[in-house]
């Protein structure tokens, strides 16, 4: 059981938009340092933050993420530098 769980944790981080709706994840890190990823961290999305993928807007629109009492939306194709580890 422990092995199974750690294996799940050890797998390569996913990009944010690969997560299905409703999944919980942890911010693993950022693929690059730029103003966008800096802003995300200023908003509190620092590595180790627990997030939840809440929903997607119609027609493959932005992805809504919740963390703590915050909720933000990012566009899927603009979020490929956000790496996460899926928890479920």
């Amino acid at each position, binding site marked *: 059981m422990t092995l199974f769980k750690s294996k799940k944790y050890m797998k390569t981080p996913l990009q944010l938009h690969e997560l299905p709706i409703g999944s919980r994840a942890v911010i693993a890190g950022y693929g690059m340092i730029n*103003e966008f990823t800096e802003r995300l*961290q*200023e908003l509190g999305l620092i590595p180790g933050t627990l997030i939840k993928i809440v929903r997607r*807007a119609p027609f493959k629109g*932005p992805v809504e993420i919740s963390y703590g009492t915050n909720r933000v*939306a990012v566009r899927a194709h603009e979020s490929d530098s956000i790496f996460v580890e899926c928890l479920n």
Partner: protein
Amino acid sequence: MSHCADDTVESRVIPDSPLIAFVGTPNCGKSTLFNVLTGLRQKVGNFPGVTVNPALGNLLGHKKNIRLIDLPGIYSLAPKSPDESLTTAVLKGENAKIALPDAAVFVINGTNLEKSLFLFSQFAALKIPTIVVVTMIDEIKARGGTFDDIELEHELGVPVLSVVGHKGVGVDEIKEHLRSIGDFSIPQISSLDADSIEIRHKWARELSKNVLKLDQRDAVTERLDKIFLHPVFGPLIFLAVMLLFFQSIFTWATPLMDFIDGGFSGLADFVATIIPEGIFQNFITKGIIGGVGSVVIFLPQILILYLFITLLEECGYLARGAFLVDRIMGAFGLQGRSFIPILGSFACAIPGIMSARIIPNEKDRLTTMLIAPLMTCSARLPIYALLIAAFVPAVYLGGFLSLQALVLFGLYALAAISGLVMAWIFKKTIFKGSKLPFLMEFPPYRKPSFKSVGITLFNRGKEFLQSAGTVILIFSIILWALTEFPRADVPEGTPQLVAERMQLEQSIAGQTGKFIEPVFKPLGFDWKITIGVIGSFAAREMFVSVMGQLYSADVTETDATLREVLKTSMSLPVALSVLMFYVYALQCMSTIAVLKRETGGWKWPTFAFGYTFLLAYGVAFFVYRISLGIF
């Protein structure tokens, strides 16, 4: 015009007049508190290159002049947009126009402490005497949470006050503090000594946990979002809200505008009975009263549109609507929030452009403002109605589809599609490489503060009259002079319609029309149409009345006379060419005045006028040439 900003520069030298800055993250309730403290006497500064300008005001009910400034919201001291740069520059004392504030009110959203504390950790290093004001304490209590302000005061080293902005609770205590800046103290954070974002946020998260005990879930907001962001009902509700919005500025404003119109022409008629006939009477009635009327006429649409977007913004729905349409607007390089200014511009570009302030990203905001004039506003309708009625046969396709209606719809669609394509081109060229990808926060739903909304409306209306209104008034007086001078020699007993035509033909505008006729010749425009184009710069619908004057015909577009005259004196290719020209041309001085106001200079209005003129000229030319070949 821009003298509002200069006032602040002057008054800052008065030693007895401290300047207190309002600082906080976006959506922290800062502006609501600012509105409650300063009331109706706000000024909006005008700074080149910044489109969201800080509001300035004096503390209400206080003899000593205490100036408050509402700086654009920031997340950190590393600015990522011109608006954020303005705030950080002011706080660091690096702004040429606004002095380093003597003190600051740091506004914190109590339900969302961590982000505010992160900003505070950077802000503290600036060593500005500060008090912290925590908003939305009532919501924490309503959700069964607690807030330990004594712990927070201890950790931050500054006084911590709490307020319920929209109910006015705690406002008196804040006023009390603002009166004696001695109560402010320089922040001291002892438990933090590192500079990475990560460490600062961990500190903020830890402190937040100690101070705020709150069930993390906002059940009301979650439940409402299940409806408003539902895959099916969400878009339907959005559609309904937008229809209501469009209906309100398009039709509900009409009676008010008619009332203003009637009021000003009644006033002009009345004044005409007092002042003896002649050029002075003409100047007062047509130049001054007509000019002021052409400014005030925009107020109903501006106020209704602002009422709508301020309510939507304050209650939190605007962010949801933007989320829903982001994909569609994103296809053209815009973002969800561009939807409202663009939709509003179908009624009138003036309120449309003013409402672009809701777009947080500078490049998206400019792009939206630049394409807003391409949307078919209601002032184009009289021109379309006149020409379509004159040249498109009133037949029904398949027995029910009116060809005239189809052409009108085609003009609307052409303009909208062209505007979106232009937006896409702008985002690929002049506004290439947006610094910041789309990022949107969802504020919790909350009851709007009607007092604050009212204050915002009042100040927006006043600001429009003072800044854009001045430019519009000057433009209309110049245009009046161009059509009334030099005076034509009209023999006694000439019928009034003929006399008006003679005056217009011999005026500077008339002569200019004849002089620049060769410029418009390739489009098939004769000198009469050219004068119409010049005259319609006052407002597009003026084209109809100028044509009426030039053909000595009745000027109502529903009246058959002018239509019949045009049918015989204008060919179909020319009519199509005129239509195309008005689909694209930014033939409206008021729009230019508002663009100047909202972008802080003449650069963007000049660009907008230039590109729409080239577009109008090019499309009209092609349509004219092609239709010459066909007809």
